[in-house]
């Protein structure tokens, strides 16, 4: 897919199977693991092993309240909070194409802990979130 360095504006982002790429200005896969120190006698410096995965997904959305668009998809179309406060599946790919070694698919079950809507005079309405991942991020290449 990418034959070298590439422009990052072709990423695909789906939330609960809904393709919201057209409303995403930035997405970050924060894949991290707890750092467990195993430093012991004889070591000349700190030594670590990986603990539990402790990842999160950060997404910057451009707001759109229209039917089936980003706000209703995540915050619901009714009087409820929608997916906010619940878990949902988030899938991210560098390109909008089939999963492959050069276009890996990252699937995460996220807890939608926040939906901070920002409305400023003279600026685009946006929602920037960081959702913790339940368990591990799954990477697939086919």
């Amino acid at each position, binding site marked *: 897919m990418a034959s070298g360095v590439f422009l990052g504006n072709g990423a695909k982002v789906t939330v609960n199977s809904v393709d919201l790429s057209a409303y995403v200005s930035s997405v970050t896969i924060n894949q991290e693991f707890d750092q467990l120190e195993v430093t012991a006698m004889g070591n000349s410096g700190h030594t670590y092993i990986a603990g539990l995965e402790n990842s999160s997904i950060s997404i910057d959305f451009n707001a759109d309240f229209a039917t089936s*668009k980003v706000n209703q998809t995540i915050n619901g*179309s009714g009087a409820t909070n929608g997916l906010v406060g619940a878990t949902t599946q988030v899938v991210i790919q560098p390109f909008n194409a089939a999963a492959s070694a050069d276009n890996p698919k990252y699937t995460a079950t996220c807890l939608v802990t926040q939906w901070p809507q920002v409305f400023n005079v003279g600026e685009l309405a946006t929602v920037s979130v960081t959702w913790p991942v339940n368990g591990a991020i799954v990477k697939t290449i086919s």
Partner: protein
Amino acid sequence: MEYKVIGDSLIAGHGKGEIVTTDELQGSNVEYLVENGHIEPATKKAKDKE
């Protein structure tokens, strides 16, 4: 089970009017997608509308 995409957003890669299957929606909250007007069960009635 099959569902028809009725919203403007792509659902599991399918656009408005197309059919998406339960398998393709695996891991997703299908009931929520129906409630929010993204998809509807692809019943005979729904197909007749096409």
